[in-house]
């Protein structure tokens, strides 16, 4: 039996989660197949074939898969899924949309947001917004699992796996893709940035996000993040929201500015390697999550930090 990994891609490029899932999959000691669903997949397929640990890349290409819909992708997985003992995807908006549907079609329960694989069917996953870590064991014949990809080191490249072209089943035609609105940004994508500079409601305005935080983020070649309360206050767009209801990030360096540290927010950044907290309140809960803390007025400390950097 083998492991099937649902690969995510965008603009003909694989997302960083693919190499992380491939490395996580090695613990099963089975051959690893990568499933790519979309249109115009040549570059992404080459990219997946080059990742160490991949035996085959299964490429399902069709014009109607240009914007892959959950109905179509789940049908493809369900159609081939019984030949696999493990089916993995990232716990991203895409993975969370598709994989539960595929699991139900295969009549198995799904294990979501896994942060650690303890044994081939035993997983650790956060519950209660990350306040509790549960260890669960699946009794299903096919393990269908979404992983928090940032918890796993990326596999190397240098491989040359075979690429197998599979015929796409006809479109399910229950859902039509209409449009997407990407918030334009020259900065790297939030989910894969190595530095995140994040602000809370005490920034006070959208202007301050740009004038106080953005220069620091730019100097560190990082991206801006925001808490839900800052987004709700209109200081930052929702697509940079970090937390339970936003994006989960795990950068090398996370700088939390004027953030109290509500679990809603920390659920989205607790895997960051180094956390710096700058807050005027010495009792703020964010300091319990931080490696380095500075009690200071952010409007003085952040520009000073920006200026002190090379």
């Amino acid at each position: 039996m083998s492991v099937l990994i649902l690969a995510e891609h965008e603009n003909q490029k694989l997302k960083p989660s693919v190499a992380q899932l491939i490395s996580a999959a090695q613990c099963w000691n089975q051959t690893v197949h990568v499933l790519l669903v979309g249109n115009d997949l040549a570059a992404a397929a080459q990219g997946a074939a080059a990742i160490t640990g991949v035996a085959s890349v299964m490429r399902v290409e069709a014009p109607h898969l240009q914007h892959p819909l959950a109905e179509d992708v789940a049908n493809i997985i369900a159609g081939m899924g019984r030949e696999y003992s493990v089916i993995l995807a990232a716990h991203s908006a895409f993975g969370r949309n598709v994989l539960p549907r595929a699991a139900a079609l295969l009549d198995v329960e799904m294990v979501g947001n896994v942060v650690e694989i303890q044994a081939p069917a035993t997983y650790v996953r956060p519950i209660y917004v990350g306040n509790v870590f549960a260890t669960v064991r699946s009794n299903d014949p096919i393990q269908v699992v979404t992983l928090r990809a940032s918890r796993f080191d990326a596999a190397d490249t240098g491989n040359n796996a075979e690429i197998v072209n599979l015929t796409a089943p006809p479109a399910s035609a229950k859902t039509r893709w209409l449009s997407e609105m990407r918030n334009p940004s020259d900065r790297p994508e939030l989910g894969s940035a190595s530095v995140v500079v994040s602000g809370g409601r005490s920034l006070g305005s959208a202007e301050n996000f740009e004038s106080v935080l953005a220069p620091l983020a730019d100097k560190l070649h990082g991206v801006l993040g925001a808490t839900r309360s800052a987004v709700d206050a209109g200081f930052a767009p929702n697509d940079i929201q970090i937390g339970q209801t936003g994006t989960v990030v795990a950068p090398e360096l996370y700088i939390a500015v004027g953030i109290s540290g509500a679990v809603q927010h920390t659920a989205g950044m607790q895997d960051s390697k180094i956390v710096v907290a700058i807050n005027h309140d010495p009792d703020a809960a964010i300091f319990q999550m931080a490696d380095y803390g500075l009690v200071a007025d952010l409007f003085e400390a952040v520009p000073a930090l920006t200026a002190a950097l090379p």
Partner: protein
Amino acid sequence: MKLLVAVKRVVDHNIKVHIKPDGSDVELAGARMSINPFDENAVEAAMRLKESGVATEVVAVTVGPAAAQDVLRHALAMGADRAILLESSKAVQPLGVARLLKALVEREQPGLVLLGKQSIDDDTCQTGQMLAALLDYGQGTFISALEIENGEAVVTREIEGGTEKIAVTLPAVLTADLRLNEPRYVKLPNLMMAKKKPIQTISASEFGIDVSPRLALVKVADPPARRACVMVDNVQELVEKLRSEAGVLP
């Protein structure tokens, strides 16, 4: 059009849960319970569809023990017309819930099923997608905007880096994100009136569906602790630590 809204009774989102001394599970005895916040958005969306004349009836449903009636009362107080308790004394996992809801959908024939995008207790985020799969319906998950047009639900979905818009043929399954709406405040008179509305109890076993859990809970634990925070006195010290100790600055 009839709407079915699935709600779940969870530990109130303001409560920090504790772990039982033996680590077998979280301690729920005596904890304040509420309707799952995302499900409240789903009920609100249903009420707005009814108030705008798109829907004619809103039916709330939950799967749980007899005590789960209180979240059905909450949905009724928000304006739902009637409610159904699929009673099960044992915890039912997402696939089991989806199977029970499928059976109820076949009985009730709603034009649209609404759920919250995930529950805040086990954070699974899969019941809606599973229900859509079992019914062979289209799905719109994590929605932040909803309109019904020409037999389709036109929804905006929250995705990484922005949003996407899709049209899902009815009947469909939709799951609500918090940004979909601001749920109405339930006033006392509405709560009193909700007590007069009917709650139908159906034993989950009546459907003859296997809802036995597929996942076994081995143990629960506190999240791994981070090392203690090093407090610095000023920006210069911070830069120095980040450079020499943490190695994250050149």
